[in-house]
Structures are given as C-alpha cells and as structure tokens.
C-alpha cells in the first residue's frame, strides 16, 4: 500500500526585540538565572502587562512578507495552565483573533519543483521560563529570564508531504525571519523552535488521518528525522491493524524515537478568554504602510533577481539568498570583480562558506572581506595566479597573513605564463619521464594528466596549466594531438 505523509508545522520564532513583549526587562540571552525577570515577568501581584509595540510591527512585517492578511483588530487571550515556569498561571497569547492570518510561502524543493505552503495564522504570545531538572538533586530549578520574551507562533497548513518538505519549509521560514530581522534564528539558544503535526493517509484519500503532535524539535535535522520516524511508526501501526492515537509525543534524538508525553505534561483545557488587562491591538493603514516601506528585498525576489542579473543557476541563487548577509556578500564580490558572477558564486558557496562553517563564524565575522575576495578573483581572471594558488591565497588571507597582493608578492605566487619558462619546465619533465612520454606518443592519452601534474609540481603550482598542456602536446610531437 502506498501512504502519503501529511505534515503541518508550528514554528515559534523569538522576536528580536531588546525588551520583552509585556515588560521592560531585557531579552539578552545567557544572563545569570532570574536576573532578567522584572516584577511583571515574575507575575507579582498587582503588576500589569503593557504591550511592546515593536512586537506588533515585527508580526506585521512577517505577515506582509508571507501574503497574510493583517488583522485591523486582534485580541490577546489568556491560555490558562499551571506550571512552575509559567509565573502567572496563564500565558498571554492570541486565540480567536491573531495578528495576521491566511498567507502562503512557496518552497523550492530539492528536485527544483515548488510547494506552496499555506500560513494559517501567526500570532503573538509570551514565552514561558525554563525548568531545569538536572543539577538540583531531587529539586527543580526555575529560570524566568526567558519568561515574557515575545514569540511569533507561525502555524502552517497541513500542506507538507514529506519530512524533506517540512525541513525545506522550516529553512524557508528561518531564512525569512532572519531577512526580516525579526528573529535571530539561533536554534541552539531556542530562538527558533518547532512542533510538528504528523499524520498519514492512503494515497488518494481526501480525509486526513489522525495526527500526533511532535515536540522538542530544535534543529532542521531533528525535524526531518522525527517526522520520518513518526510517519513510519504510524504506517506500521495502521498496517498491523492498530489505530493512531491523537496525542503529543516527544522526539528523543538520542534514541531516534518518538514517545508519548506523560499525560501530566499535557494540559487539556486551556480555558482561553480575552485578557482584560490588555486592549485589543488595532493596526491602521498607516502602520501597515510604514512597515511595508521598511521591508527588505525578500529571498524569493532576490533569488529571481540573482538568476536574472547574474545568470546564476537556480540552485546557486537559492543557496546564496538563504541568508541576507551571504547574499549581500556575494553581490559585493560580483559587482567588484572582473571574474564572472558564476565564479564569484562558486567561491562564495565553496571556499567562503566552507571556511565560515569550519570556524563556526557568521558571515558578518568573515576573515576575508568581500572586496578582498573580489581582488583575489580578479587575479585569477587575469591569469596572474592559478585556481590552486588562489585557494592557497584565500587561506592565507583568512589566517590573517596579509592582503591578497601582499601574500602573492611575499610568497612569489605569481603564475608563470611566459612560454619560454614553461617550455623549459616541460622539456625537463619529458626528459625525466621517458617511459610516460613514450606511452603518450604511442597514443595513451591518459598519461598527459600525469605529465601536467609533474610540470605543475616542478613549478610549485605556479605554471599556467592551460599553457603547460599546450606545451606538452607540442613537445611530445604531432602524433600526440
């Protein structure tokens, strides 16, 4: 039997405001426990929430970027449940009237096709604190620094059809919130988290299967693995005559399995009702226009433009536009260098991204600036240095040994392109490798590569490979071409 996997994601993006959504406390990550919890965050008697207008603007930004409708009037509601890291005994969220709703994003899949994913709604809410069950023998610690941090909960339609699609959608939203500068996207710190609703149905069925909700998916990889393993579990269960129970399950990355959360971790009736401490949020045309004017070029538009203006393949344009800083870096290089945009793209996606990943650096912390890379690619384009040497220079600049020019100069890396020197090197190599020369003359073309390698080695990589190739063919005689 063929099964179809149906997935919808609920993404929690922590809003990149300096202060919390309903208090003036700082949102800085990593401070000493409970040092950034104001009386409002602690739920002290008599304190009241006051909405941080920047959170609303950020939500509008997201709404505009995903073709959502912006609610002219939205309402904060209380979600009531008891937990020690929820100081008030309720979370201020939005229920019936979210700030934005009814949008969509187009996700480019690996095979190049596009999946349109509905954004059912995105609503504002406050984060809870953290309960720490380790490190306190027999007790629990509570850190309320995070309590009251603004979140945008982005709820997708059940439009995703595989773990890979869910991963691609999540990456898409991740890129988008970072473009919009409404979330730092830091998944280790929990700034960008995700729950997944997963069900399966027989291919062709119109009716959705019973879903489970997977919690604790704090990386792209975990989202994909958890959905895969959960869908497989459901299929196996149904095929063996069982029924999927609608429940919340926890993904355990160590065992790569999902298991039901203990029933106590699951609250049943949140008793939502409009929060009487907060007025309805009203958003007028002026605010929408103001936010619209502040929108940056979005990833989709940028990708299209890169394909058009720089003649990049779709894949390159996609990779380069995932992150705004990377796209900006590429554009600076492409505009400044005489090398082709495709060469620039290769270097940004290859050497630069590799070095950043190796050293765990953000684009903003790159050790080879965009102008430096442009100048390096100029040298490459002009034939002053070879590709291999260029990589060596890149690493040296990265290591802080000086500018592109200084390193080429200091190490004497200028490419050997004068034919006399190359002819000499070639002659020496042929003399030193008579057997291979003979084989080539006898028609064994593959040997040429070996000989080119020997010449390059003798020149310490500086000889122009194209010229070496030509010189070898010439010197090995007419029968060789």
């Amino acid at each position, binding site marked *: 039997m063929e099964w179809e996997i149906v997935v919808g994601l609920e993404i929690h993006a922590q809003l990149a405001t300096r202060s919390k959504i309903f208090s003036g406390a700082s949102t800085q990550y990593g401070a000493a426990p409970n040092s950034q919890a104001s*009386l409002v965050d*602690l*739920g*002290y*008697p*008599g*304190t*009241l*929430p*006051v*909405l941080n207008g920047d959170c609303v603007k950020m939500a509008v930004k997201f709404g505009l970027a995903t073709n959502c409708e912006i609610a002219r009037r939205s309402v904060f509601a*209380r979600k*009531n449940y*008891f*937990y*020690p890291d929820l*100081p*008030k*005994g*309720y979370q201020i969220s939005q229920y019936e009237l979210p700030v934005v709703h009814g949008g969509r994003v187009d996700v480019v899949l690996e095979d190049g096709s596009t999946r349109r994913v509905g954004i059912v709604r995105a609503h504002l809410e406050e984060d809870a604190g953290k309960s720490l069950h380790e490190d306190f023998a027999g*007790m629990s610690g*509570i850190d309320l620094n995070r309590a009251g941090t603004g979140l945008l909960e982005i709820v997708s339609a059940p439009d995703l059809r595989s773990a890979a699609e869910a991963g691609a959608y999540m990456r898409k939203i991740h890129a988008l919130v970072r473009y919009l500068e409404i979330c730092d996207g830091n998944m280790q710190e929990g700034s960008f988290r995700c729950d997944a609703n997963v069900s399966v149905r027989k291919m062709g069925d119109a009716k959705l299967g019973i879903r489970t909700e997977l919690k604790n998916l704090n990386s792209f990889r975990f989202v994909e693995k958890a959905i895969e393993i959960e869908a497989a579990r459901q299929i196996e269960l149904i095929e063996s005559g069982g029924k999927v129970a609608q429940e919340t399950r926890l993904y355990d990355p160590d065992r790569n399995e999902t298991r039901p959360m203990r029933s*106590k971790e699951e609250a049943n*009736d949140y*008793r*939502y*009702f409009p929060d*009487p*401490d*907060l*007025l309805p949020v009203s958003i007028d045309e002026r605010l929408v226009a103001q936010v619209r004017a502040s929108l940056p070029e979005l990833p989709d538009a940028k990708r299209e433009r890169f394909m058009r203006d720089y003649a990049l393949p779709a894949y390159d344009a996609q990779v380069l536009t995932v992150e705004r800083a990377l796209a900006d870096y590429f554009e600076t290089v492409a505009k400044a260098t005489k090398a082709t945009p495709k060469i620039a793209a290769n270097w940004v996606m290859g050497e630069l991204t590799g070095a950043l990943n190796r050293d765990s650096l953000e684009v903003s912390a790159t050790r080879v600036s965009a102008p430096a890379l442009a100048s390096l690619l100029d040298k490459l384009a002009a034939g002053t240095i070879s590709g291999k040497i260029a990589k060596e220079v890149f690493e040296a600049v990265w290591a802080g040994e000086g500018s592109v020019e200084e390193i080429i100069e200091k190490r004497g890396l200028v490419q050997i392109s004068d034919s006399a020197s190359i002819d000499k090197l070639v002659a020496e190599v042929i003399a030193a490798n008579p057997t291979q020369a003979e084989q080539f003359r006898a028609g064994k073309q593959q040997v040429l590569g070996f000989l080119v390698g020997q010449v390059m080695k003798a020149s310490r990589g500086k000889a122009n490979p194209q010229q070496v190739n030509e010189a070898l063919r010439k010197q090995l005689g007419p029968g060789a071409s």
Partner: protein
Amino acid sequence: MHKGTLAQLAGDLRARRVSATELTRHFLGRIERFDPKLNAFITVTAEQALAQAAVADQRLAKGDATPLTGLPIAHKDIFCTSGVKTTCGSKMLDNFVAPYDATVVERLAAAGVVMLGKTNMDEFAMGSSNETSFYGPVHNPWDLALVPGGSSGGSAAAVAARIVPAATGTDTGGSIRQPAALAGITGLKPTYGRVSRYGMIAFASSLDQAGVLTQTAEDAALLLEAIAGFDERDSTSLDDSVPPYSKLVGEPWDDVTIGVPESFFDAGLDADNAAAVRAALKELTKLGAKLKPIELKYIHLSVPAYYVVAPAEASSNLSRFDGVRFGHRAERATGEDLVTFYMRNRGEGFGAEVKRRILTGTYVLSAGYFDAYYLQAQKARKLISDDFARAFREVDLVAGPTTPSPAFGIGQKTSNPIEMYLNDIYTIGANLAGLPAISIPCGLVRNLPVGLQLVAPPLNEARLLKVAHHFQRATDWHQRKPGGYA
C-alpha cells in the same frame, strides 16, 4: 481634631493650626483605642507614618506643600505598598511584602499624604460583608454586631468611626459604595480606567476600579484629583486629562435631570430604606433637580452576569498564587508531585469564598460551558451598558438606593451566598458598564445609615461630585456619626 473632614484638616495644616505630626499622632491614638473592637486594620504603620508626617511638616514649612500634604489616610490592603505587608485579606499573602508601591499609593505619597496603615477587607475583595477576611470580620461602628459591608469594610468602618479621616478602596461590584452606605459615609467609584489599577491586586480586571471612602463628596474630589489620570503601566487606564475636581465640586448648581429606575424600588428593597431614598430624591428636587422615571430593561441580569464574568477573571488572576515565588507555601508542600504541591499551597492559602469563585470561574471558562456562560454573560453585560447609554441620552445622572437594606448581622448571610450576592444588586450595573458612581448617606433606618447612589456617564465624576456636594450642603446625613467614638 478627628471631627474635621479632609478639606477642613487641610485648611488647619496650611494655617499651621495643627502639624502633620500632631494629626498623625492623634489618629494613631484613635486607631490604638478603637480598632481592637472594630478590627478595621490589618497593619498599622505608626513608625513610617510619623516619618512621613515629619517630611510633610518640612514641606508645609517650606511652602512646598500640595493641598494633601500632611493629611493622614489609610489604604485598603489590596494596594501594594513597598516594604509594608500587603495581604489582600488572605492567608495566601500573610507573608507578602510588595517590593513596590501601587500607582494610587505612589501618587498620594508624592502629594505628601501620610499612610497610617492598611485596612481589613474581604479576602481578595470577594465579599459584601468583610466576613471572608483571613484577619477576621470588621465590625460596623454603628453596631458592633453588624457587618460594615465589603469588600472595603475596613476602610468604611475606619472612616465611619473617624479613626482615619479618609481611606482608599476598590470597587468591583460595589465594594466601595456598599460599605460606604452601610457605614454612613461617602464612597466614590470612578469611571473604569480613570484611576490606574497598577499595584492593585486584581480580582476581576475588567471591573476593578480604585476609589475613595470619605466623609464628604468634597473630600472625595480632593483625593480623586490626586489619584486619577493616565498611567503607562496600566493599558486600560484612560488617557484623559484630570479636571480640577476639588474646584468643580463647589461650582453653582446647574440644571440636572436625574433618572430614577422604578424597578430599583421593588419588593427587594427594604421599605424604610426606600422611604429614605425617596426623601433624598425629593431633597434633590428642592435643589433644582428634575426627576424622571427611567427603565433599565436588562438591569435584572446584572447579578447573574457579574457572577460569571467576575469569577471567570478571578479564576485566572488568582492562578499566580501557587506558592512558587511568593505567598503561602504549605509546610509539607514539596517532596511529592507538582499537583500535590499546588493543592496544598492553594488549599491552605485560600478561604472558602475565594475557592468557591475560583471553581465557578474555572467552570464557566471550560470547554463546553464557555459559550453558555461566559459569552452569554458578556452579551448581558453589553445590554446593560447599552441600557445606561440609552438612559444617559435623556438624563444626566441615574439615582437610586445603594443597597437593599441597612447593615445586617455578622454571620446572618454567610450560609447563603445568593442572598449575600444580592447585596450588590444596585451597584453591580455601574461596574459592568464601567460608569462612575457614588454613594452618599441619605438617612437613618432603624438608627442605621443607608445610602443614595448616583451614577453618571463615563468620566462625568465632576458632575457626580458636585450634585453630591450640594446635597451634603443642604443635608446633614453625612455628619451623623455612630456613638461611642467621640
């Protein structure tokens, strides 16, 4: 000295006939003498009061005083006071010392008002008799066997016995006006949002409003002028300028049409009480008011609507009292599971009436009941608001009795919550509609005071206070005092 109103004492202070320190000592002495039988105070802050009085005297000497500098008052124990215990009448907060001042407290302190202490109240302001307090019932100075009303019962009793010249209170369904009526004093509940709720421990957020209990409307104007106004820490506070109430209160009488809902005078109202209110209305006509019978079609829904909305909000507002960060923690709370921890803390910390309302509120918000109760109650609330709005197209004020009867006996209604709840039948409407309302003494029934309630359109406190003030200039009901507190 204690016979003076705030306005008179303010005059004495400015004329240096008395010092703030003398006034403070005098009232602290009266508290010491009479409070043991009234139980109006939970905390008396003698030391702090004398320190504040000393500062006030310096201000008065330097000519740096406001009209309120040096006047001693008491705060209902629902307002957070920095460094001073704030219990809200509950065992849950018996150990709670707020690290900050409520806006009302802060504004009065900034004006130079001296705080004598914190007054007793129904637990979390849930009650109409002050019998639900963890600190025991408050006794009505007119008859110690009777209740003073609630929930601001301590404030009402203290002002009635003149052991303080005035006090703050809060009013969610009548908690200022009802005790003011039963204790024979003036009680003002301003428009919802007129006074900041910041630092006022929440009962039902959409209904709670801070106000004052005073001897006269003139005193109420004086205090309101200091506490009213926008506060950025309370999103529901109104961003409207504060009129000079204390001046406006004394302006000449102008034409006033007063609407009288005849349904308020039905069988539920004590006959003598009704007669007293009718006489007061007649007195108003002598001053020039025109009376007009009006109909408030849906006002009969106010008690049921209130007892859905208020408990619903309370059930959520009181969730923060879990024993984790502050408040009562049971001795054997930890060591078992989380639910046991909550059950022990909350089971011990809350009294019966609070538990009743948390249960009611939780029930009406539950899936499957929300529409039938909460949403219906909100609809009823809208109808009641519309009722008043319609009435105010024809009349300037609405008048009637504040309570169905004068004060009742301690213990007399505790076994019947419904009967207790009906005490607020005339006052709840103003809360549901967010309107300003005042109760002023208007007669004695079987030697017990009763109140006349006046309700005004939103933000029309000035007119409310002016009419009350003119009534008080023409009558002496507000000057009648219980015996034994000379």
